[in-house]
């Protein structure tokens, strides 16, 4: 079982995509995360769903968790409104040390190790500078359990 056997097409966003559209894509398609691609269509950043939330949480609440508690319910519910007009590029965290990107020949063990190491619920599969798709945690586990 190799990455090429498990991969499926995966929707992507660009740094220019609005954060609201990116959030909607994630929610509507029930995606485990987001792949942000650069001008050449290659993964520039891969964000697990929980990290996509970071885009919406004000920086001061990330710096100081106590501040999230003091905000009243009405303002807390309007969390996403502050993101209107902002693009993924504006809120993207710094480039991580390693991206969960692999090639079509990767084995199940390689992909599992990569996911575990990068805390990512998906790995992007790239071949000859082209994004082929992604293998998600669910697909990988289904494949492994079927053996």
């Amino acid at each position, binding site marked *: 079982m190799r990455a090429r056997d498990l991969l499926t097409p995966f929707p992507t966003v660009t740094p220019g995509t609005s954060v609201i559209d990116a959030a909607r894509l994630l929610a509507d398609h029930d995606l485990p995360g987001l792949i942000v691609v650069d001008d050449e269509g290659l993964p520039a950043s891969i964000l697990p769903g929980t990290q996509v939330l970071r885009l919406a949480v*004000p*920086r*001061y*609440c990330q*710096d*100081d968790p*106590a*501040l999230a*508690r*003091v*905000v*009243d319910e*009405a*303002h807390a519910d309007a969390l996403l409104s502050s993101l209107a007009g902002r693009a993924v590029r*504006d809120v993207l965290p710094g480039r991580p040390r390693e991206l969960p990107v692999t090639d079509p020949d990767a084995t199940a063990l390689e992909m599992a190790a990569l996911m575990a190491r990068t805390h990512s619920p998906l790995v992007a599969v790239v071949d000859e500078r082209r994004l082929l798709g992604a293998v998600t945690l669910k697909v990988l586990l289904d494949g492994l359990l079927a053996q």
Partner: protein
Amino acid sequence: MSVLAWVTVAVFLGAYALIATERVHRVAAALGGAGLMLLIHASDAGAAFFSESTGVDWNVIFLLLGMMVIVGVLKQTGLFEYLAIWAAKRARGRPYRLMVLLVVITALASAMLDNVTTVLLVAPVTFLVCERLALSPVPYLIAEAMASNIGGAATLVGDPPNIIIASRGGLSFNDFLVHMAPMVIVLMVVFTGLCRVLFRRWFVYDPERAAQIMRLNEREAIADRSLLWQSLAVLAVVMAAFVLHPVLHYEPSVVAILGAGVLVAATRVTTEQAIAAVEWPTLVFFMGLFVMVGALVETGVIGQVASLAVEATSGQLGLASMALLGASAALSAIVDNIPYVATMSPIVEQMVQAAGGPGPGQVLWWSLAFGADLGGNATAVGAAANVVVIGIAARNGTPISFWRFTKYGLVVTVVTVALVAPYLWLRYL
């Protein structure tokens, strides 16, 4: 001077240049310099590790260590968030009143805790409050950094340069309270007035926005009430023990480390958490500095510089203290005030001796302390608190440029130092 002395000076200046230009990590620069001093026999293990005057000053290291642990616990309580939001509500969303309350809270906290921690705690909540009020956080952040530098000057534990000065000059916590704190209160009053003038165009009051601030719930900031009371009790006992030194005879370093120990033993805070709260790189940086400066003392360089300074100002204590105040403010604006004070302390020590001992010569220590603490406000890189605030602002998407900070910083430094000069003159000279 001997060849060794000249080599020592070269090593010292090289390390200092690396620290000032941040070409390498400051810990690497200080330790590299200290290592070279040992390598060339400008210092040895006996002096570096065991001499109070030419080696690592363990009183300074352990005082910092103890306070870092206490602050690390206090940080978890949510007290600062509570106070800042309470202040915003008290100010009823009025921009200038809000600034006054925030800078007073920052200055008071900085007098008891270190400046960097204080601004790290108050900056995030400033963003929240300013966002609610649709105000720019920039003037608030700048004012808070400056208030922490001014407030920190008030006590022995408020600013690292004061800790070094106290240890080298044999000055007590109460000496700082009697000689520094009253003037710092005056400076804070003047500073709040200055804020009104400097930042006036930023203050825009919006009644609708102001109403929204009242919906923040500051009580939610405090997650663990018992931890809050326990740490406040320990902080109160530590401060009382500092003040009661003439009765109890515990050195400040001993008080701080015992306080930290009691806090960890009595609360749910674990030893691992307490150790994680300590900024080890800062402590190691201090150790490296002490060994480097110690080598300058051992090889007679400091003695030479001190006798030149004594000669130049012989019998003119007034001239000496004013020159020290001005030069310290100017130099601390450009280089980190910690290495500056570490280097100047042994020189000032000899100037104090030449001026007739700790009694009449004490004004020189206060000149050094005021100059170094207040000079830090002048530029964006003058004090650690400024650097931290600028970093937080950039991360939150409201960058503060070097010149924007420095434009305000120069005004505040010139005004505060100009006020300190007559204070020193009238009180001591």
